[in-house]
């Protein structure tokens, strides 16, 4: 069982990295990876909300939607849960942890449209994770997100100064960088017997 949990973590963290291998959560990845500190803020907000939303959607799916035969409502339910969760977390942080709120503040509303959060809720159900596996899976995925967004931010700070032809400046060169990073991550396939 322990081995199994470790594998779930590693698969979510590196081998099936959510950004580079699954292409989920690209908008914030390209949107806020311009600077290291904003990337870290976005990353921690994702970790926080992803963990909470995967717990809540897991409980709702297994204890409300399945027993009452309402599984077809899952898309609508999950998106509403996430949207209201984000609002709630925002109010809670502003009241009780003003420091954390100023650090994460502007990134929280953006998370509602971050498909990574919703995707983790769905994947937990598709993979039939129990609650512990779901926790490990969401933490691993969020760490994978943070790792890649930080690496990208560090590279992009240097790209600013590099001589790049006009048509490639901005987004195209960022995608080429992402392509090279994905190439490096491909090397992890088969690691400990994990597959895509």
């Amino acid at each position, binding site marked *: 069982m322990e081995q199994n949990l470790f594998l779930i973590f590693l698969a979510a963290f590196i081998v099936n990295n959510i950004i580079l291998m699954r*292409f989920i959560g690209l908008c914030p990845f390209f949107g806020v990876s311009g600077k290291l500190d904003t990337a870290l803020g976005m990353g921690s907000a994702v970790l926080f909300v992803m963990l909470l939303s995967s717990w809540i959607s897991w409980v709702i799916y297994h204890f409300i939607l399945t027993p009452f035969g309402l599984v077809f409502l*899952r898309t*609508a339910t999950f998106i509403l849960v996430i949207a209201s969760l984000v609002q709630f977390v925002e109010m809670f942080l502003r009241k009780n942890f003003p420091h954390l709120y100023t650090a994460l503040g502007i990134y929280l509303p953006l998370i509602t*449209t971050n498909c990574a959060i919703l*995707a983790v809720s769905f994947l937990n159900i598709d993979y039939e994770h129990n609650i512990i596996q779901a926790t490990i899976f969401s933490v691993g995925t969020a760490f994978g997100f943070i790792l890649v967004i930080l690496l990208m931010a560090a590279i992009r700070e240097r790209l600013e100064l590099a001589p790049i032809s006009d048509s490639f400046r901005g987004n195209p060169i960022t995608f080429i960088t992402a392509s090279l990073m994905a190439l490096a991550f491909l090397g992890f396939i088969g690691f400990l017997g994990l597959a895509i």
Partner: protein
Amino acid sequence: MKHFINGIIKENPVLVLMLGLCPVLAVSGTVRDAAGMGVAVIFVLTCSNIVISLIKNWVPSQLRIPIFIIVISTFVTINDYTMQAYFPELYKVLGVFVPLIVVNCIILARAEAFASRHSVSASILDGLGIGIGFTLAVVAMGVIREALGSGTILGKTIIGESFRENSVLLMVLPPGAFLVIAFLMAGMNKWVKK
């Protein structure tokens, strides 16, 4: 008519506005998957545009985003179950990206920026135009990646048997997706935007 053309080239949602990138990169490994995704997006986008432009006068502005999301997720669910019933193979390949259409920024962006302010007929044209723009971009990616990566288009060998056996496998893998869209965007920057 202007709304229709606009979405296809000048405001191409993917290559110019940079919206809805996740499905574009993820499902463009083959032309068939790409076209399937494109049709699904056209359906959801046009239907949600129609409903939102019909109800726009009764939606209180503070509550508009949750209401739009419910409308969109209704059509995503319809699409989800239709696909599961009639195209099970395609559904299996697209996987989690079918329910994820609900967070595709293109759809909410059009609801907010266009359908909630214009008439029904204009919204239909806008939905079709933007949807076709999305489909063109994702199919273009699919054509390039499938041709280079497996040497085929829609499963038919195109460049020649020897190329098919030694194709650029990288193009079908994740790095190829990033690479192709980088070059498409650079091309748009050079020839179209200005």
